[in-house]
């Protein structure tokens, strides 16, 4: 088990957002976490990445508990979060963003070359400020920056958010390729259709709790999931 979360509770102030979540991600999998806005998905990811202090429960990466460690040590467990909204260093160049992604990777030159191969588009824009890229390019750069650190476990928060449909497909193709390259992916998405298509397993989160889990293929046909997250139930009713 690469990532194991047990009975995790956390929140902001006295407001409990994540109410006892347990889940796990095995090496080599793509696992997706679905749920509506405000279900607590992003808070859960922030807690796993160490950005949000947890109230109780346990987070283990490679069977070692990382609870209480500051966020900057997560990369020593080969874990990297690509946060919601890209969070690039907007006033720095594309190249500097990639370089800083490899802050702890002494072999960063080679890792950056690999990112060029994966996203040839970025190579022509190395000297451009990251904040001036288009939304799709920014997502590529956010992914690229994370990959320069050569993580084994990649946490992705809404990578398709705000992207044009064509870009969304490209991002999901890229995630599939990551799996082939041996990177384990924990994907938080609202775009349930696309996420279930590439995922091995899925969890569904509602108001801070996991209400469903299973093989992605099974969840696609689950009427509950279809009604709530795929929007197909409504279509059938109206047709």
């Amino acid at each position: 088990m690469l990532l194991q979360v047990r009975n995790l509770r956390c929140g902001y102030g006295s407001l409990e957002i994540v109410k006892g979540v347990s889940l796990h991600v095995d090496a080599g999998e793509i696992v997706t976490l679905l749920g509506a806005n405000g279900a607590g998905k992003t808070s859960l990811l922030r807690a796993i990445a160490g950005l949000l202090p947890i109230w109780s429960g346990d987070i283990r990466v490679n069977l070692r508990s990382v609870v209480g460690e500051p966020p900057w040590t997560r990369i020593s467990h080969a874990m990297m979060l690509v946060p919601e909204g890209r969070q690039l260093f907007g006033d720095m160049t594309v190249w500097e963003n990639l370089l800083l992604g490899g802050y702890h990777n002494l072999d960063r030159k080679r890792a950056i070359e690999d990112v060029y191969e994966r996203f040839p588009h970025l190579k022509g824009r190395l000297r451009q400020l990251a904040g001036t890229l288009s939304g799709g390019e920014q997502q590529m750069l956010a992914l690229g920056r994370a990959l320069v650190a050569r993580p084994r476990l990649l946490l992705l928060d809404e990578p398709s958010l705000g992207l044009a449909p064509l870009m969304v497909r490209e991002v999901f193709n890229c995630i599939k390729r990551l799996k082939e390259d041996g990177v384990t992916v924990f994907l938080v998405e609202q775009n349930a259709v696309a996420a279930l298509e590439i995922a091995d397993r899925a969890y569904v989160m509602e108001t801070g709790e996991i209400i469903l889990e299973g093989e992605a293929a099974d969840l696609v046909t689950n009427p509950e999931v279809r009604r709530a997250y795929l929007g197909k139930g409504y279509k059938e009713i109206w047709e």
Partner: protein
Amino acid sequence: MYAIVAIGFNIIYSATGVLNFAQGEFVMLGGMVAITLASFLPVPVAVAVAVAIVTLFGCGLELVFFRRLRSHSILHMIIITIGLSIVIQELALHVWDEKVRSLPYFTGNEASSVKLLGAALSPQVIWVLGTAAIVVVLLQLFYKRTLYGRAMRACSSNLEAAMLVGINAGNMRTAAFGLSAGLGALAGCVISPISMTHYEMGPGLAIKGFAAAILGGLGNPMAAVVGGLTVGLIEAFSVSVIPSAFKDVAAFAILLAMLFLRPHGLFGRPSGVSVREV
């Protein structure tokens, strides 16, 4: 000399988003420590040791007063720096006393002058300008060319993202405090022969340095230098228009005018207006 104080503001501001109102105290401490050491050490050694001591002092301040803070809210940290400024002044009053002191001129003496483009300058002025120039160039190289400098910029650009890529934000803050304390101390040493060192000099310098930093735009050492020189010049020229007792008014007027009209500085770009992607 406002320029170097302004640079000090910039360093901590760029790494942490905090305005360090104890920046003027670093300048005062640098001068005081160097003067004390100069009584038994040669001046260059005294200056070097003073800069080293104040650098460590700056790091220590961060470790003691900021590292353990539960919330690193900007406002909390700014208020702490104001408190530190007062405490350091009182300590300085006890350790030294209220006498005005100064280091000897680095080269020549009060009477000597250097002819430059028809103007007669005290050699110490050249020391000040030269130091400021070298500091700016080195800082630019540090920020733009080294991994560590880029990591410091990353912390100001997006602190969470910086922590996610594995930058130890706590250590960066310590380094920023040390660096700006050291530079402040260096400034305190080179200006000491001209403008003297006094336990109470800090707040005045801090406010004027702040005016310079705001004038240039926070977050850019080059702009800070231009801002510093401008504040100095305006202050000097104001004497010919208004009574010299009102000299300080000029700096505060600039500060207020800038905050009202162009809070992002002459060279800065407005922040907070970022382009959202399509």
